[in-house]
């Protein structure tokens, strides 16, 4: 059982919160802007040390408080994550013992799939949300992914800054960073290619399953994912060298995983431009379900599904199809503004009502 209890202190709008979570489904209901999403966000930060909503830890701290704390029982162990604003100090504890390496903490923690309203961006948006999708998955699948990504981003930032800084680029300094950037970049390119190869069949299968449940014909609309790498995973150094004149002109790093993307197509037609919004939502959902399947397959552990208000946009038929399509053995934390359509289900779910940063069992 992944996460059985959650405690918060000064996190977002919650001064303090303590609530047990059901092994199956836990529902959080309430009006908008009451703190429902923040509860899911807290679970995500506790388990994966990153928020799907923001990159800045300070935004997670309740206004006026010196820092936040999140704790919970995860896979039978007590995990604690505290963050102090002064000096942005993070402390991680496993069963009361300090864990100095985030890698160890993440290994002891659970897996997460986040499904939210803006998942549509995965299909319709720029490459950025798709890269973040790969990063979120990759960090949970490969232990070396996160350190490589962090180091790559840091080196890239310094390199791009140097390219922009001087009237004529200082190549001696720039190449000092190129040499650091290349091995991390090649590692990322290789891992992302492997990731997409594993993910694609699961996405196609999940897509077909949702469409079947929705009454679609199985033969039509095959989903395919094609990786478009931003560089060669064994030739990145040579590629950058060949583009030196272009880099001097455009003043930005022209090859590398920061330019990765993957093409989503329905029957070989790009989904971003040719699919309807309904079709795009189904694809986004299939991508997230594929993520869950892949995590379970690769790590032997069902991920926690965090479903943030994804039912609002769907008609009752699709809602039920979606609920049926979710992996049965995963723990699910769900936020929604309305319950009435769920009543017919009579699922054994723990229910909480969220009002202005306080939570009461229903």
């Amino acid at each position, binding site marked *: 059982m992944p996460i059985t209890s959650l405690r918060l202190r000064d996190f977002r709008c919650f001064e303090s919160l303590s609530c047990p979570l059901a092994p199956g489904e836990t529902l959080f209901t309430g009006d908008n802007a009451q703190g429902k999403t923040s509860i899911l966000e807290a679970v995500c930060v506790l388990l994966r040390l990153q928020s799907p909503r923001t990159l800045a830890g300070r935004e997670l701290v309740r206004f006026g408080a010196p820092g936040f704390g999140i704790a919970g029982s995860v896979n039978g162990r007590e995990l604690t994550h505290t963050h102090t604003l002064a000096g942005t100090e993070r402390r991680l504890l496993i069963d009361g013992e300090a864990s100095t390496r985030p890698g160890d903490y993440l290994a002891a923690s659970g897996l997460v799939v986040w499904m939210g309203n803006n998942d549509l961006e995965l299909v319709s948006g720029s490459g950025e949300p798709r890269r973040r999708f790969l990063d979120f998955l990759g960090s949970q699948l490969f*232990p*070396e992914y996160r350190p490589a990504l962090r180091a790559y981003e840091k080196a890239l930032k310094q390199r791009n800054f*140097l390219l922009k800084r001087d009237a004529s680029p200082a190549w001696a*300094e720039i190449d*000092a*960073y190129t040499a650091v950037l290349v*091995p991390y970049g090649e590692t990322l390119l290789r891992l992302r290619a492997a990731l997409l190869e594993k993910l694609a069949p699961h996405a196609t299968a999940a897509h077909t399953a949702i469409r079947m449940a929705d009454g679609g014909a199985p033969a039509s609309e095959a989903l395919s994912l094609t990786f478009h790498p931003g560089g060669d995973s064994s030739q990145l150094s040579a590629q950058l060298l060949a583009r030196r004149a272009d880099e001097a002109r455009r003043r930005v790093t022209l090859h590398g995983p920061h330019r990765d993307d993957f093409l989503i197509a329905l029957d070989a037609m790009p989904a971003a431009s040719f699919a309807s919004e309904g079709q795009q939502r189904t694809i986004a959902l299939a991508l997230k379900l594929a993520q869950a399947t892949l995590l379970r397959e690769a790590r032997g552990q069902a991920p926690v599904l965090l479903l943030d208000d994804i039912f609002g946009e769907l008609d009752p038929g699709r809602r039920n199809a979606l609920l049926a399509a979710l992996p049965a053995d995963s723990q699910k934390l769900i936020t929604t503004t309305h319950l009435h359509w769920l009543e017919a289900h009579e699922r054994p779910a723990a229910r909480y009502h969220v009002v202005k940063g306080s939570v009461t069992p229903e």
Partner: protein
Amino acid sequence: MIPAVGYPDEIRALIAQLKRLPGVGPRSAERIALWLLRSRQTPSTDLATALNQAQAEIELCPVCGFFASRTAGCTLCGNSDRDVTQLCVVEQATDVLPLERTGAFRGHYHALHGRLSPLDNIGPEDLRIDTLMQRLREGFITEVILATGSDVEGEATANYLAGALGASFPGLTVTRLAQGLPAGGGLDSADDLTLLRALSGRRRLAAH
């Protein structure tokens, strides 16, 4: 109404000074100040003397960048037993200490007092690279060991130095600290990048 009484100004000044020290909060500052005063004579005057002496005596060695005494000189540069052909380049003066603890290095050191980080506005001209070049021009040094950190900025600094040294001193041997498996660890505990580096930095074993 009688005004509430606080500490006398002298104690408040002492607490304020202590509070400025790294890692000391207002509560600790108060506790330390009171302890120093209560124990009278010895500890507080000893502290004051030690502080004054250190302040007056210690400087950074203009040659190697390590801590040196104004009267006794630099213990590293002044030691004639050390190997003058080897020079180990580190980021900070304090980085000398862990290397010295290994007891395996008998050459000289050069602290850069920082590392390259364009975003923090630290370029080559902000590091002690000129003095490094000057030492190399004296001609005694045959090997430079780059012992900057293995994070992004540390690696970039090492790369930059390797390029600059190679261009100015073609005959010089420039080496980098090896990276690889942690001592006492198995292969399965190392990540890909560490293994990759361990593999590319492999060494030949003597045949028996």
